[in-house]
């Protein structure tokens, strides 16, 4: 390697650098190696003229330990991949056979349904709870605080079982005016709380307690001056929240919110205690019958990985959208990077690649 770097003097005089000639002006052809500076320039004796290094070749610094580390980790990764591929007990054939089986896909759809519904409801309720917590009314503040306190301090499993067995505590559910006999609506609790309803109820309320704190944190992270400026401009309160505060709060909310959603995807597996046939419960039912425990758990795992990966892509683009104005120039998306790479490395056309795609 070092042999390519040493012959600076030979590679230098190639006329590839028009800039070097104009700088020197007087001695265009004599820029060979270190001998050049003293020759022609009118410099007072005793002081060396500044060398123009423009036509020197740059030798990057070497990092041998980085290479050692890379090699060690590379070996480890290769070892794991090898064992995954060759150990017959992973039973990849069984995995492939079940991966797209109808029952698994049905379970997957149930998982997605639970995630979407309780995620959406949870964040809406969380937003309301966050606003309550930030309000000036002491009652609203303490109700919101108590809600988060209770639902964050009881295990989700217990909450699930409690909702499912609500009929034991309250035989009937009714909607009416308190302390009167007026009833608008009344039903048996057991008919009302199906497995699905109990699952959604449990996941939603739990999710709301956590997302309330996330949203509140995001709102608090926005500079007070922003609200003041908006108020001074006469912008109405609702518009202040939605147009000025929330878009800025989103930057703080999004990373943690996506953590929560990804946690929720896998958290839905807890509803197996209600014998609700989502992905994880379905897998259990199958392996209890076929005894292929590990391959089927692998099927579920792979699907969770797929969902999480798709969500991560969404996260990347949504975060990028909300970083508008927060960074001076938006980073390129992977797609734009690929396009730029192709454009600069393709030998055929050399159009000027303006970075116009930063929006």
């Amino acid at each position, binding site marked *: 390697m070092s042999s390519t770097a040493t012959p600076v003097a030979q590679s230098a005089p190639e006329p590839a650098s028009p800039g070097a000639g104009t700088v020197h002006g007087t001695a265009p052809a004599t820029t060979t190696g270190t001998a050049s500076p003293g020759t022609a320039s009118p410099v007072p004796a005793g002081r060396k003229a500044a060398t123009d290094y423009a036509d020197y070749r740059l030798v990057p610094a070497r990092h041998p330990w980085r290479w050692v580390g890379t090699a060690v980790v590379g070996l480890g990764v290769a070892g794991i991949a090898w064992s995954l591929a060759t150990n017959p007990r992973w039973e990849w054939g069984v995995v492939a056979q079940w991966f797209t089986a109808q029952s698994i896909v049905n379970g997957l759809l149930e998982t997605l349904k639970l995630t979407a519904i309780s995620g959406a409801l949870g964040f809406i309720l969380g937003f309301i709870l966050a606003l309550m917590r930030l309000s000036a009314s002491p009652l609203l503040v303490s109700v919101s605080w108590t809600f988060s306190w209770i639902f964050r301090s009881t295990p989700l499993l217990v909450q699930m079982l409690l909702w499912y067995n609500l009929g034991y505590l309250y035989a009937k559910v009714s909607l009416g005016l308190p302390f009167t006999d007026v009833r608008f609506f009344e039903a048996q609790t057991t008919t009302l709380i199906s497995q699905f309803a109990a699952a959604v109820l449990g996941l939603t309320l739990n999710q709301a307690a956590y997302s309330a704190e996330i949203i509140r944190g995001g709102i608090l992270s926005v500079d007070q*001056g922003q609200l003041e400026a908006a108020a*001074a401009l*006469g*912008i*109405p309160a609702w518009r202040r929240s939605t147009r*000025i505060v929330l878009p800025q709060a989103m930057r703080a909310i999004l990373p943690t919110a996506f953590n929560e959603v990804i946690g929720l995807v896998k958290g839905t597996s807890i509803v197996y205690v209600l014998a609700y046939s989502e992905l994880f419960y379905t897998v259990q039912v199958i392996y209890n019958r076929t005894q292929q425990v590990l391959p089927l758990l692998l099927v579920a795992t792979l699907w969770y990985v797929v969902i999480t990966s798709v969500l991560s892509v969404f996260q990347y683009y949504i975060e990028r959208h909300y970083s*508008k*104005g927060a*960074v001076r120039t938006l980073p390129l998306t992977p797609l734009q990077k690929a396009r730029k790479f192709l454009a600069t490395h393709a030998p055929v056309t050399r159009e000027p690649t303006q970075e116009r795609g930063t929006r």
Partner: protein
Amino acid sequence: MSTAVLTAAETAGSTEPTDATRGLVEITKVRKSFGATEVLKGITLTVEPGGVAVIVGPSGSGKSTLLRTINHLEKVDAGFIAIDGTLVGYEVRGHRLHELREKEILKQRTEIGMVFQNFNLFPHLTALENVTEAPVVAPRAGKARLSKAEARARGLELLDRVGLKDRAGAYPRQLSGGQQQRVAIARALALDPKILLFDEPTSALDPELVNEVLDVIRELAKSGTTLIIVTHEMGFARDVADTVVFMDQGQIVEQGTPQEIFTNPREERTRSFFSKVIEPAFNI
């Protein structure tokens, strides 16, 4: 009704003085405490329509708080503030003062523009969006809201006026401090206010950027809008003010023309303050 708005906008856009009854500020015996500390101890001050009042004084003297009471960002504890004879934040009914509801207060604020020390531009909106946001949504007294197209045209005109028409699409973080503050001034002008409040508009700026902002304010001083400016730029104060107000410890120590206050102050406190701050800035 859009024609009425446009004519109003055009009058403000030109540099000839507008209606003389516009923008009279009367502050009467205003008091304000934060906890145990009283920051304003009975301030009385009148700024004539189209006048330029510059408030100077040591930090902690209550200058900024006074400014913020004028558009009701701070509620006063006692005393009252009136603009063209109308109370700010309250309504007189019979012999009672009723506190105004949020919407009414917002309406009043649209007549009082404010420029902050830290600009407080909305970082997720472009320069133009910052300027056009309020005229489209804010409830305005006796005027219709602008349509998006009208607001855009007016916004570009205002950005042009502060010399930033070519940066309309830039986000605040892509602008220098001086440019950001000029956008903030354009934003305050977008509602066509009677009064403009400046809270130390150049304090967060590098020295070489101060003048580009001061030049814009000088232009505004000629336009007939009432300006109330809190600043530490004494040279600028002498140049632009018709009234200089010296505040210390929550009180107005003295006020008068720049000539009176800067060259011939009556009070010892004023003299000692200026002797500390003025020397370099005064050689203009």
